[in-house]
């Protein structure tokens, strides 16, 4: 490939305030760039991305007839589009602009000014050489399908679905559990306002069910995702519920009628604190309000030999349907909102807190169920032996802020611990001891709530719990049954004493962790995870609900620990981003596709098996390989592997990269 025409390059280096200029000598580089072949204009400017900065670029293009632009500034992932736009506005093809990243890869990571300037100079020389080979390119547009998939029916997924549906978009909401509602449905009241979680959540759940624009697929899982922005094909596995959602009227008589008179298996919704039957509904307000049959334990499903009392009572409604099978259904959507939520830290990992060993040690989620009026005890906080606890320790930071478990602060535990302290004190009058490391109460009304709880006489002890042991040494080996008082031991760091406080009950404020299958989901979606395993946003500040995969957005705690207001806010943002995408009707795709010059190709077929998108095929008539640019995603693998150098890639031409390499390494 040859350079085309007379090359007139404009070079711009950005100070980025002091972000770049404090480390890299921008003036020296601008002077240096001016000496390089083809450079007509070379400038340094305070903020290239500002309006005057962009205008400077534009007026230079017009005035000096520039036909190539190099901007040395921040990461192209941040501002490439800005400068392409500015280039285009001045009448030049935007792909004649190339960016050099001297901030994220330069001034921010190097301390030695001389070396950082030297590095920047090398990178700029490379860009100035590269840009000579640039060619005008046209952006591709592909139409965007109008339906949206929302994965996960917790509060974030519900809110995102409703927002999109209200905007007139068809939403398919896929929820793994038999009901939507997520963790929020399990909570009693919510901090700091103390609204009853069910009271505010249930109407939204009902709206999902009734919304004409929402298709709710509960008890279903996304198993495969193909395609790309605007055009995703999603395979959803629908598990058999054995109760026909269309025919069921939600009378629940089948549950009553089950041959098991009492619940026998741990109830998932009550985190195992109560028992359920093989046919059950997770909780009374579940959506859809349709029972589900657990195939592991239903006698009919297991053996086929049951009196089928449920079928009998259902009568001619015929809603019980044992013929249901697992199905795989493909749907096509333009955008995907991921709202898969979180899991709670497994407290058995910390042996010295005695969870799973002493029966009076609970997780906060269990405590939520125990004080919930719809919970296993009807809202009465009772110990397993039926006694009311008189003293309770709430241990903060369980599994959080600890290099042995999770490094992060789980963000919600301080506040939910205070909420539990308040609710339990209010209902039982027990003495409450909250052991905390730092009280984290940022955000609207949070500090006020903390004040309120302190004033209510909750003992707030600043010290991380170091040990929890039975007050009376249990006789024998059977500590699993231990039910007596527990001594919670911690240093009260504010008074500098070790305190050993006997309590009837311990509540562990377990932290938030990624869902167990977050890794698989991440791979399926082709998105990234942060170090802790939560899904990674495109930019922590400027693109908090976007992912690096266009068309996939994040909502709620799958992106990181979050409280309800933040989850809802983020869900709204994700919905808006999805809406902006699909309402535009089409998306621009980077024109970085691969292409073949027909006469160069020998038809060796080496490239054909390399393409994961089957964009390359063999033209049997011409005996040459052909690339379907609509299918090509621009990875360039075939380009690198073409043995005769006959496949090229827009924006990443061999000559462009070779000239970059040569530019980087040239001794001046």
């Amino acid at each position, binding site marked *: 490939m040859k350079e085309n025409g007379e090359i007139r390059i404009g070079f711009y280096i950005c100070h980025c305030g002091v972000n770049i200029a404090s480390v890299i000598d921008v003036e020296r580089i601008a002077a*240096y760039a001016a*000496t390089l072949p083809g450079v007509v204009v070379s400038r340094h400017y305070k903020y290239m991305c500002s309006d005057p900065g962009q205008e400077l670029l534009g007026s230079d293009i017009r005035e000096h007839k520039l036909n190539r632009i190099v901007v040395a500034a921040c*990461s*192209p*992932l*941040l501002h490439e589009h800005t400068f392409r736009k500015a280039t285009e506005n001045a009448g030049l093809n935007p792909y004649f602009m190339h960016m050099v*990243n001297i*901030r*994220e*890869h*330069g001034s*921010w*990571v*190097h*301390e*030695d000014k*001389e*070396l*950082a*300037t*030297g*590095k920047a*100079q*090398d*990178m700029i020389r*490379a860009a100035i050489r590269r840009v000579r080979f640039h060619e005008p390119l046209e952006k591709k547009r592909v139409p965007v399908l109008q339906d949206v998939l929302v994965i996960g029916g917790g509060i974030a997924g519900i809110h995102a679905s409703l927002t999109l549906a209200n905007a007139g978009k068809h939403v398919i909401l896929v929820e793994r559990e038999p009901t939507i509602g997520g963790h929020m449905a399990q909570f009693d009241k919510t901090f700091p306002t103390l609204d009853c979680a069910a009271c505010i959540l249930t109407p939204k759940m009902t709206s999902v069910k009734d919304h004409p624009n929402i298709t709710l697929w509960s008890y279903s899982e996304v198993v495969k995702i193909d395609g790309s922005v605007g055009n995703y094909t999603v395979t959803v596995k629908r598990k058999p519920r054995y109760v026909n959602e269309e025919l069921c009227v939600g009378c629940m008589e089948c549950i009553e009628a089950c041959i098991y008179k009492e619940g026998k298996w741990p109830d998932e919704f009550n985190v195992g604190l109560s028992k359920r039957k093989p046919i059950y509904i997770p909780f009374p307000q579940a959506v859809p309000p349709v029972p589900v049959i657990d195939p592991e334990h239903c006698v009919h499903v297991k053996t086929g030999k049951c009196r089928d009392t449920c079928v009998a009572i259902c009568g001619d409604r015929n809603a019980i349907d044992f013929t249901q099978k697992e199905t795989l259904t493909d749907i096509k959507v333009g955008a995907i909102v991921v709202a898969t939520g979180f899991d709670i830290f497994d407290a058995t990992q910390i042996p010295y807190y005695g969870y799973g060993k002493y029966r009076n040690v609970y997780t906060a989620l269990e405590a939520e169920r125990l004080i919930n009026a719809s919970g296993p005890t009807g809202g009465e906080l009772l110990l397993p032996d039926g006694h009311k606890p008189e003293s309770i320790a709430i241990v903060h930071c369980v599994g959080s802020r600890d290099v042995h478990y999770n490094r992060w602060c789980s963000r919600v535990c301080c506040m939910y611990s205070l909420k539990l302290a308040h609710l339990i004190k209010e209902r039982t009058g027990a003495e409450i001891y909250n052991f905390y490391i730092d009280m984290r109460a940022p955000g609207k009304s949070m500090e006020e709530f903390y004040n309120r709880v302190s004033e209510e006489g909750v003992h707030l002890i600043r010290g991380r719990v170091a040990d929890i042991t039975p007050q009376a040494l249990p006789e024998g080996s059977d500590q699993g049954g231990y039910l007596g008082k527990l001594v919670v031991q911690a240093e009260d760091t504010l008074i500098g004493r070790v305190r050993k406080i006997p309590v009837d009950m311990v509540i562990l404020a377990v932290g938030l962790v990624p869902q167990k299958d977050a890794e698989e989901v991440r*791979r399926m979606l*082709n998105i*990234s*995870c*942060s*170090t802790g395993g939560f899904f*990674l946003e495109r930019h*922590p500040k400027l693109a908090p609900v976007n992912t*690096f*995969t266009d068309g996939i957005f994040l909502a709620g705690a799958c992106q990181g620990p979050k409280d309800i207001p933040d989850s809802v806010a983020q869900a709204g943002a994700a919905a808006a981003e999805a809406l902006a995408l699909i309402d535009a009707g089409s998306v621009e795709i980077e024109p*970085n596709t691969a292409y073949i010059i027909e006469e160069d190709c020998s038809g060796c077929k080496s490239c054909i098996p*390399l393409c*994961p998108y089957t964009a390359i095929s063999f033209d049997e008539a011409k005996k040459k390989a052909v690339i379907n640019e609509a299918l090509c*995603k*621009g*990875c*360039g*693998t075939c*380009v*690198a*592997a073409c043995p005769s150098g006959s496949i090229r*890639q827009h924006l*990443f031409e*061999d000559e462009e*990269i*070779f000239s*970059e*390499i*040569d530019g*980087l*390494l*040239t*001794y*001046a």
Partner: protein
Amino acid sequence: MEHTNPTDAAPWRPRIVAFFCNWCTYTAADLAGVSRMKYAPNTRIIRVMCSGRVDPQFILEAFARGADGVLVGGCHPGDCHYVEGNYKMLRRYHLLQRILSDMGIEKERFRLEWISASEGDKVKSVINDMVEKLTGLGPLALPDQRAEWDREMDILEEKMSVAETAEKEGTHA
């Protein structure tokens, strides 16, 4: 421009050309920047969409042009934005390493690393580690080597041009 002069008194520092994939490693390098992690300034990054785009020619060209090391960064296995471009690079890596070793280029000079978008710290540690290892190995400096090799032709060239001059002078005289 004095800074790039090889005869400059400044101590030799290894030069690394890095090819980072847009989705994982380039982003991780951005993250290292946003997190203000400090690392050795010896690497010059070239952005490609996928490690699968890294043509072995690029690596050889970088060495031939004077790189002391070449680093290729891609997504972890199973994480490739383009399904398995990184595997294709991995396969080339193994074959190319054999060629490089046969040609006397130490394996430490060519490195393939999987660095995900969230591993800013890994960008830092890999680059620092590579700089340390290359500093230990010393310069590769292929262009200098070439010049050194070609010096063996100088004597003859000189001799011939002397003869030519003499001949010309002879004719003119």
